[in-house]
């Protein structure tokens, strides 16, 4: 391989540092013995003290568990609704109001989160009041309202991903299934869903991530006692952050990083095998 000039090499390292230095620092400081997040205690470090503290910090653990549940439900709901939206936009032809639906479905992408959060809050409060007045039924804001709010702004992302996948898929596959006697619903589950499964999965993951680290919308629509992890971390930072947050973040980086690496390795392997098989099929006519 040709050796590159010093300029390219310096720029590469600067770029990598810009992206990853904060994370490296975070990992390093999670082993810091000092109670102050930004002061390095050279004498007692490194230590696992904050990892131990984390195990007993119920506020963080409860919040993490809540966040996981919210994110999983959000991702699932968003994947279903987003897929249906994408399907309607791509496969149902030029029906009346398609442009309007397309506009509506992408609006949350450009809507400031504060506005989404505020409008969701207004909605939940008025529904609450109507329910109480009409049926005498009272509900608190909490996990359900957070999930609903998250679904509304994450399903857009799923719809976009699914739409582009569907548009690039050969629609004669679905026609062939119809032609072979499968009813439309069966075609959807047997052909369309497997075909766009990668898009649905990445949409699901995207929705999960968006929900997992959302603060603004959650802040508006959560109720007493329902604090998601980002909310807890945020409030801790305001009170003077506890280094166990660093430990927690390091664990997350570790889990996510491992996941990404494994997925990339697996995808590459599948792709390689597929290419080899295609070459072999063409060669061995």
């Amino acid at each position, binding site marked *: 391989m040709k050796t590159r000039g010093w300029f390219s090499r310096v720029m590469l390292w600067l770029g990598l540092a810009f992206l990853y230095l904060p994370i490296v620092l975070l990992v390093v400081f999670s082993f810091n013995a000092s109670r102050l997040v930004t002061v390095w205690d050279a004498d007692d470090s490194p230590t696992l003290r904050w990892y131990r503290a984390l195990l007993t910090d119920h506020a963080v653990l409860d919040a993490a568990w809540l966040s996981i549940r919210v994110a999983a439900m959000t991702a699932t709901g968003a994947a279903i609704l987003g897929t249906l939206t994408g399907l309607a936009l791509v496969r149902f032809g030029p029906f009346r109001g398609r442009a309007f639906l397309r506009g509506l479905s992408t609006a949350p992408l450009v809507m400031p989160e504060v506005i989404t959060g505020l409008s969701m809050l207004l909605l939940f409060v008025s529904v609450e009041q109507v329910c109480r007045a009409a049926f005498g039924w009272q509900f608190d804001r909490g996990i359900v309202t957070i999930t609903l709010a998250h679904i509304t702004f994450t399903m857009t992302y799923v719809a976009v991903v699914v739409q582009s996948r569907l548009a690039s898929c050969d629609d004669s596959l679905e*026609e062939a299934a119809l*032609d*072979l006697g499968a009813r439309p619903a069966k075609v959807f589950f047997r052909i369309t869903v497997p075909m766009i499964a990668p898009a649905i999965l990445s949409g699901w993951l995207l929705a999960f991530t968006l929900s997992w680290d959302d603060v603004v919308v959650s802040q508006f629509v959560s109720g007493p006692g329902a604090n998601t992890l980002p909310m807890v971390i945020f409030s801790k930072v305001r009170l003077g952050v506890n280094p166990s947050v660093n430990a927690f973040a390091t664990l997350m980086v570790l889990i996510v990083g491992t996941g990404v690496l494994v997925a990339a390795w697996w995808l590459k392997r599948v792709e390689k095998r597929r290419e080899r098989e295609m070459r*072999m099929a063409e060669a061995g006519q």
Partner: protein
Amino acid sequence: MVRSRNDGNALEPWSDPAAEPYVRISGVTKRFGDFAAVNDVSLDIYKGEIFCLLGGSGCGKSTLLRMLAGFETPSAGSVVLDAQDLAAIPPYQRPVNMMFQSYALFPHMTVEKNIAFGLEQEHLPKAQIAERVSQMLSIVRLTEYAKRRPHQLSGGQKQRVALARALVKRPKLLLLDEPLGALDRKLREHTQFELINIQQQLGVTFIVVTHDQEEAMTLASRIGVMNHGQIVQIGTPSQIYEAPNSKFVADFIGSVNLFEGRLIEAQEGQARIQCDELGGVVHVDYAVDASPGQSVCAAIRPERIHLLREPPEHTGENCVRGVVREIAYMGDMSIYLVQADGGKVVRVTQPNIARVTHGQRIEWDEQVYLTWRAGSPVVLTR
């Protein structure tokens, strides 16, 4: 046409007025907004035929096929298959199957599963499905590929899977959209004979859509030439080639020289056409349905023109002098572009019967004579 000739009448049901058509397309029109993709098409297709719809892109042939499959609804007209009106029947209940141009094999299923898909929709017993699938696999010679996925197959194998998948349902009518379009040249020739064999073995009626006239000529029992959403001519491959009914058909099928002229004599059994652009008179030895003075067009195929160095004994009619402008050596034959005295460039093909060696062959800028038999030109009035 390479169909076997077992008995005379069954071979040409379209020429028997008592024969009942199997597929009857009458007055079918499809409009997209103001544009009529298919415009008042009527067609009778008989059982066991391979009928080719031939036309350039955008002529409406694919739209017509999609209406037969049920993916498009006709704006007007009706389609009747085996005495059953197809109008209200959705694609998944029609006794019609389609082989797609892209093959549309399901990438997440094995060859076997792809072929079984259609039968599973009929809720047949498992054993019966397995039997019919393996029978079909052996017909298309893919038994050892049953467990493969579509991406593990070559182009020709994919094409055979697509065919098997469409045929395993035993449709009354099989629609094929450019069945050989995605194959390379060598494979096409082999595959088209195989396709005809399978069709005869199973006796299914085929409707083939293609833009490739060679494909249509070899596959079809009859061809319907389409242009601007309408059927221009229906006939057997030889009828279409030998007796085109219009300049469009003559020009679309094979190559042809079109000599514009004026009819100067029309009698019982012969006619004469004055062709100024050719610088001569075209004489035909059959009656022409036109009156003297009318402008007509004489169409003659390049292989029906003889190229001579010396003037023939009878000059004047059906003989023009010209100069060779271009020569293309194709191996089995050569194409000559000869500029006639009247200015028209005439395309002539000559088989290279003997080995062509330097010195004997006709060269650039040589003066030559073109002649043809009086029966060779076709006189066209439109």
